[in-house]
C-alpha cells in the first residue's frame, strides 16, 4: 500500500487522470447498470419479481392468417379462465396495468386527481406493500363487488387531512363513486410500475357483455402468477393447455387467440410492455453488453497508457526482482493486484457518485413507460441501490477494467531483460 501511495504521489497528473478516468468510467457504467437493475431486481413492493410470471396480452388472428386483427390487454373472463386455480401456482392475481387518472375527494374536501388501479386480493399477496394501517380488501370483497379501497398515505393526507390510522374505514369518492378505505400503504414509486398506483380498488370480475371484442379475450386487465417453487414450467404448460382449449372453442368464430409467448418472467415483461410476440430478451441483452463493452474498452485503453507510463519508471525495480528469481507470472500478478487497488478506489468513487446521483436525480434520468402519465415522481431510495447484484456488477467491471488496462502493460513490463533493466541508468 505504501508503495502504491508513493507511486500515486510521484506522478500527480497521471495519477489524477487515472483515478478520475476510472471513477468516470465506473460512474457511467454503474448508471447504466442501475437503470437496468432497478427494473429487474426485487424492489419493494415488487419483492417477488424473480418468481413472478406475467401474462395479459391478447392478440387476435383471423384463422389461418399470420397478420393479427387486434391486440390489447385481456378481458377479465379470459384472464380468469387462463389463471384461476392453477395446480402449480401459489397465488394468481388479476389487475389493470396502467392506472387510470380519476377524481378523488372526501366529503367536504377539495377534489384532486389520483392514479387508480384495479386489482384483486391476490395482488396484495404477491406485492409486499408496506401497510401503515388497516389491511387489503379480501376475496369476498372482490367477489361481492364491494366498494373497498386501499390508498397511499399521501392520498390519505390530501383527502382526509388525517393520519393513516384515522383514515381507515372512511369514505372516499372516486370518480363520484363512494369507496370505503380498508388500508393505507406507504407511497409507491412508479419505478415499480406493476405495483404502482395511489389508490387500489377491486377489479370487477363479472364477465362483460359480448361486444365483438371481449369474447375473444380482449380487454384491459393482466395477470400475475406466483408458481410453487420449481413449478414455473408446469404453470406455463397448464396455461398453454387452457389456451389451446380456448382456441378450440374460438375456431367456431374463425379466430385464434395468441398470448405473445406468455406467461413469462420479469425480464420479458420489462423488455416490451405491449408485446405482440414473445419479447426479444436476447437482443436487449446483447445491446446492453455491447454498450458495457464500449463503456469499458475506451477508458481501459486510456488507462493502459497511464499504467505504462507508471511502469516505465519501475523498469529497474522489476529487473532486480527478476534477477533474484521472481517469476514473470508473479510480477504480472503483483502489478495487477497493485493496480486493482487504484481501480477499486476509482470504482468506489464512481459507485458512490452513481448511488448519490440515483437517490437525488433518479426521476430525471429514469423514463417510466411512454404512454402513461404518473402523478408521482419516479423516486428511488439509496437503500434500494445497496443491492448485492449492483455491488457484484461494480466489482466485476472493476476487475475487467483493471485486467484490460493493466494486463498488457504488465506482461510487457515483466518481459524485460533483467541485465538491461538494471544497467539502465534511470
Amino acid at each position, binding site marked *: 500500500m505504501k508503495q502504491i501511495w508513493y507511486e500515486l504521489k510521484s506522478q500527480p497528473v*497521471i495519477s489524477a487522470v487515472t483515478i478520475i478516468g476510472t471513477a468516470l468510467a465506473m460512474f457511467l457504467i454503474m448508471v447504466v447498470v442501475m437503470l437496468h437493475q432497478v427494473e429487474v431486481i426485487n424492489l419493494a413492493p415488487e419483492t417477488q419479481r424473480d418468481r413472478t410470471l406475467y401474462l395479459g396480452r391478447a392478440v387476435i388472428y383471423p384463422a389461418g392468417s399470420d397478420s393479427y386483427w387486434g391486440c390489447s390487454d385481456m378481458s377479465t373472463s379470459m384472464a380468469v379462465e387462463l389463471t384461476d386455480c392453477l395446480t402449480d401456482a401459489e397465488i394468481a392475481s388479476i389487475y389493470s396495468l396502467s392506472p387510470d387518472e380519476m377524481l378523488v375527494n372526501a366529503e367536504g374536501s377539495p377534489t384532486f386527481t389520483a392514479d387508480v388501479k384495479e386489482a384483486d386480493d391476490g395482488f396484495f399477496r404477491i406485492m409486499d406493500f408496506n401497510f401503515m394501517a388497516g389491511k387489503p380488501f379480501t376475496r369476498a370483497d372482490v367477489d361481492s363487488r364491494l366498494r373497498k379501497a386501499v390508498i397511499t398515505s399521501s392520498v390519505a393526507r390530501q383527502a382526509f387531512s388525517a393520519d393513516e390510522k384515522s383514515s381507515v374505514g372512511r369514505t372516499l369518492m372516486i370518480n363520484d363513486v363512494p369507496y370505503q378505505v380498508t388500508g393505507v400503504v406507504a407511497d409507491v414509486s412508479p419505478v415499480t410500475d406493476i405495483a404502482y398506483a395511489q389508490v387500489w380498488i377491486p377489479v370487477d370480475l363479472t364477465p362483460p357483455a359480448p361486444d365483438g371484442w371481449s369474447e375473444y379475450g380482449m380487454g384491459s386487465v393482466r395477470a400475475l402468477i406466483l408458481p410453487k417453487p420449481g413449478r414455473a414450467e408446469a404453470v406455463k404448460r397448464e396455461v398453454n393447455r387452457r389456451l389451446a382449449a380456448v382456441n378450440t372453442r374460438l375456431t367456431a368464430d374463425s379466430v385464434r387467440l395468441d398470448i405473445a409467448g406468455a406467461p413469462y418472467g420479469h425480464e420479458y415483461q420489462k423488455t416490451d410492455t405491449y408485446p405482440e410476440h414473445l419479447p426479444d430478451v436476447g437482443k436487449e441483452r446483447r445491446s446492453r453488453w455491447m454498450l458495457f463493452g*464500449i463503456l469499458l474498452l*475506451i477508458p481501459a485503453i486510456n488507462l493502459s497508457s497511464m499504467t505504462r507510463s507508471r511502469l*516505465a519508471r519501475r523498469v529497474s525495480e522489476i529487473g532486480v526482482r527478476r534477477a533474484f528469481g521472481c517469476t514473470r507470472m508473479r510480477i504480472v500478478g503483483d502489478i495487477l493486484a497493485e493496480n486493482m487497488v487504484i481501480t477499486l478506489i476509482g470504482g468506489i468513487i464512481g459507485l458512490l457518485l452513481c448511488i448519490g446521483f440515483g437517490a437525488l436525480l433518479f426521476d430525471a434520468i429514469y423514463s417510466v413507460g411512454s404512454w402513461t402519465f404518473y402523478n408521482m415522481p419516479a423516486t428511488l431510495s439509496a437503500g434500494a441501490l445497496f443491492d448485492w447484484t449492483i455491488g457484484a456488477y461494480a466489482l466485476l467491471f472493476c476487475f475487467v477494467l483493471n485486467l484490460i488496462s493493466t494486463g498488457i502493460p504488465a506482461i510487457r513490463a515483466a518481459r524485460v531483460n533483467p541485465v538491461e533493466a538494471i544497467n539502465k541508468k534511470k
Partner: protein
Amino acid sequence: MKKKLLRQILNEWHTNVWLALEFLVVSVVLWYICDYYYASLRTYCAPLGFEYDHCYDLTMYEITDKSPDFRPEYANDSARAEARHEILRRLKQMPEIEAAAYSQNSRPFNGSNSGITLGYDSINGNALRRFATPDFPVIYRYRGVNGETPQQLRQQMEEGKMLISDNFFNQYSREPLPSTSDIIASGKKIFYTDYKVNGEHPDVNTGAVVVPARYSDFQLWSSFALQDVCRDGFHGPEAMAWYYNELTVRVRPEHDRDFSGKLMSMAQDYLHVGNYLLTNVSSIDDIRRNFQRAETTTIRNYSVGMGFLMINIFLGLLGTFWFRTQQRVNEIAIRRVNGATRLGIFRRLIGEGLLLLALVTPAAIIIDFLLLHYDIATYFDEPHSSALRIIICAGAAFALMALMVMAGIWFPARRAMRIEPAEALSIDN
C-alpha cells in the same frame, strides 16, 4: 514533415496501435450518435401537417350504476349519444373554445390506432382511420392540398364526406403509385374494401384531398382517411356513443390561461351531462411530451454517452502525450537546438494526433457505411444510405474528434514548448 511524422508514428506503433483502436471505436460510436441525431432531426423538422398549440384533451368518465349519481334513464345508446352531443354544444358555447370534436384513436400523439383499407382499380391501400366529428380539422388546422381551409374541411365533413390524405395509397407502397389527388383527378372511384352493399364494395364519398398529418414528431407515418362515423352512411347516430373515445378542443389564444383549471371547475355542473363527468384536462403539448419521452430520453442518453466518450478521448490523449513529452525531452531539445520554433514543436505534437486520427478515419467511414448498409443504424422512418448522410455525419464525428485531439494534446504540447534545450540536454542521461 508529414513523412517524418508518419515515421515517428510507426516507430511508436505499440502505443499508437492502442490509440488508433480507441480513435476507431470512438469515431464509429460518435458517428452513430451523430447519425441518430441527423435522422431524428430530419424527421423532427419535416412538416407535421397539423398544429396542436392551444389544444386540450378532455377525459370524460361515464358514471356506472355503482354511483349514487347514476341516472339509469341516460344509460341507453340514444340517450348516451344525445348526452355527448349536448356536451359538444355546451363546450362550443363557451367563449374560450373555438372548436370541439369527438374522435376515435385520432388525436395527435396517441398510442392507439385503427386502420382502414380503401381501394381504386385493383389497388388496395391501408392507412390510419381517423373517425371524428366535423370540428376535428379545425382543431388541428388540417388543410386541403388545393388550399382548402380547415373551415371548408369542416363543411365537407358535415356533408358526410371522407377526407383522404394525398399519400394514402403511396406512402408505403412498394411500387410507385399515384397520389390520391391524381387518382381523383383521373376520374377513378375510391371504394371501401371493408364493406359490401348488394355484393359490391360501395364508393367513398370523397371530399377534399388533405395534406398528410404525421403520427408524431419522430415518425413520418402520415397517411390517413378522416370521416365522421355518424355520417358515413353505414352507422346510425348511436355510433356517437359507441366509437368515439376522445374529446379534444381548441382554445382561442387570448383565452388560453389556466384553461384546464377553469374547465375542471365546471366539471361537476356545466359539463356533467347524463352520466358523463369530466375527470381530467391535459394540453396536447403535455401529452406530446409524454408520448415522446422514449425518443427524448434516448437523445439525452446519447448526448451523455457522447460527452463521456469525448472526455475519455481528452483524458486519454492528455495522459498519453504527457508521457510522450516526458520521454521525448531530449528529442524536443535537439529539435530546438537545430532551430525549431516553440510554435513548431507545439504544432508538431498536435499534428501527430491529427495525423493518427486522419489515418483511422477511412476505416471508420467503411464501418459506418457497413452499419448503415446492413440496417444496423436505422431509426425512425428516415430513408437512409445516402452519401450525403454519411459525409455530414462522419464529418461531424471527425470534427468532434479533432477538437478533442487538440484539447487533449494542448497541455502536454504547451509543456513541450517550454523545454529549455540547455537544461534538457544537461540532464544526466
